[in-house]
């Protein structure tokens, strides 16, 4: 009986050990990942300003991230603008404040939904493609070939992508904001019967350039984040097709989660900054 009890106690002890070891390994691996990604990001950013400047590559990636995302951004933003304005219209109708639908939609879009949805959509589309492309290059030794040819692969492959994302994201966010507002207008005015003058008048009265700029600023930040994460995951991929798939998956998922979290942090930082500057 005592033997059984001792063995049982030993088993329980081992199981607890295993659980804590597993947690410890996950935590250590998380911090190790964050550390290596941060170093990778820092190294790559430094290389943007190193000769030869990769202007052609930056333009190519801007075309890929920006131009090829316009359609999906336009489509998503139009329906987001319509859905959001419809819900706000229904809510405000209850308190007879439908004249505030325009500015409320504009505030929500320009400050939050525009940058966040642009970040999520482009992270999924372009970030996934970046991770898959670099991962494939890594496992097929194309990155090794670049290094052996005396070309810094971070400078050639990573830095232009990060710079392109940084430049393109605010532009895409501006497209999102504009098309979403158009969607809201076409639902509220011709369909729901709001007065167009009221819709626009209130927007120009309530919305400040700072509201739009904070959205564009956030979008630029999200561009840096998803490009940094996805290029890092692709660049460090290993293990053939399976490894490329995992790199793409974790790159996109991590980017999306961090975009959401970073949005909340940036919102508060920007509000604090505006408040400190006495702008609002």
């Amino acid at each position, binding site marked *: 009986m005592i033997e059984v009890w001792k063995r049982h106690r030993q088993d329980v002890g081992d199981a607890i050990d295993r659980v804590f070891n597993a947690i410890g390994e996950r935590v250590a691996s998380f911090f190790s990942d964050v550390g290596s990604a941060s170093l990778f990001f820092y190294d790559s950013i430094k290389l943007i300003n190193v000769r*030869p400047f990769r202007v052609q590559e930056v333009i190519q990636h801007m075309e890929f991230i920006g131009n090829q995302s316009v359609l999906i951004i336009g489509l998503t933003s139009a329906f987001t603008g319509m859905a959001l304005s419809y819900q706000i219209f229904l809510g405000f109708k209850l308190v007879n404040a439908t004249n505030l639908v325009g500015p409320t939609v504009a505030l929500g879009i320009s400050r939050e939904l525009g940058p966040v949805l642009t970040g999520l959509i482009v992270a999924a589309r372009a970030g996934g493609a970046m991770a898959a492309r670099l991962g*494939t290059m890594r496992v*097929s*030794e*194309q990155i*090794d*070939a670049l*290094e*052996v*040819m*005396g*070309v*810094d692969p971070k400078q050639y492959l990573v830095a232009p992508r990060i710079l392109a994302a940084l430049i393109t994201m605010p532009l895409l966010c501006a497209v999102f904001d504009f098309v979403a507002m158009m969607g809201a207008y076409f639902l509220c005015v011709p369909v729901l019967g709001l007065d167009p003058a009221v819709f626009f008048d209130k927007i120009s009265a309530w919305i400040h350039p700072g509201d739009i700029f904070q959205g564009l600023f956030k979008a630029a930040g999200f561009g840096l984040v998803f490009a940094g994460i996805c290029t890092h995951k692709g660049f460090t991929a290993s293990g053939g097709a399976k490894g490329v798939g995992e790199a793409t998956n974790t790159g996109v998922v991590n980017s999306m989660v961090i975009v959401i979290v970073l949005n909340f942090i940036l919102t508060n930082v920007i509000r604090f900054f505006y408040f400190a500057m006495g702008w609002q």
Partner: protein
Amino acid sequence: MTKQDIAVHVEDLRKSFDGGHDFVLNGLNLEIPKGKITVIIGFSGTGKSVLLKHILGLMKPTSGHIKVLGQDLWSMSMQELIEFRCHLGVLFQYAALFDDMTAIENVCFPLLEHRRQLGRDEILEIAQKKLVSSGLDPKHFHKLPSELSGGMRKRVGLARALALDPKILLYDEPTTGLDPILTEMVDDLIQETHEKHAGSTSIVVSHDLFAAFRIGHYIVMLDKGNVLLAGTPEDFYNSELELVKRFLSKGLKHQ
């Protein structure tokens, strides 16, 4: 061998991927002569490709030193290492061609990066010459790697490796996955390329024993992360080492 005759000098090289429990390379010492074709052979998992990556400076040793053309790779800054690698040309196992570039663009790439003083026409001319000397038919110059056969890709990979006229040419398992006729073609190509580039050093990592004896002037056999035997093909035939005898009998019988 005097210092001037040595292309690659490896001293007490150790490499571990698991924090020092297991060593893939275990105190390896090796001298690879200049101007010759050296073939590195060995059973699978003996550290051949890992050694090659160390010679290229793609992997940092856990301990030990590697001198390539008299330069200690890991005492250089990253920028110096990147520039130094222009002296090395590599034909990777599956050629590692950039899949978004055509054959000729692949060969132009290192020239565009490192011979910026040349005009586009000159670069194109050099690339065409390299492709022709590697035996690629001009009708394939503007095809993407996905449209080329395995042998053609190797030819493009070789032309790209030769683009900057490297002092050392390295081949990583160049005949893996090829049929016997293509294998012989690649072996001939290595030999012809070596003869055309007088004074250059060729290092071939291979498990193909027949090729090793056919093209190699100097053969290095690795076992358990160390050099088992290094010498001329005759040294191998005359060796009394049991593992060498077994490798030779199995390898040659197999081929």
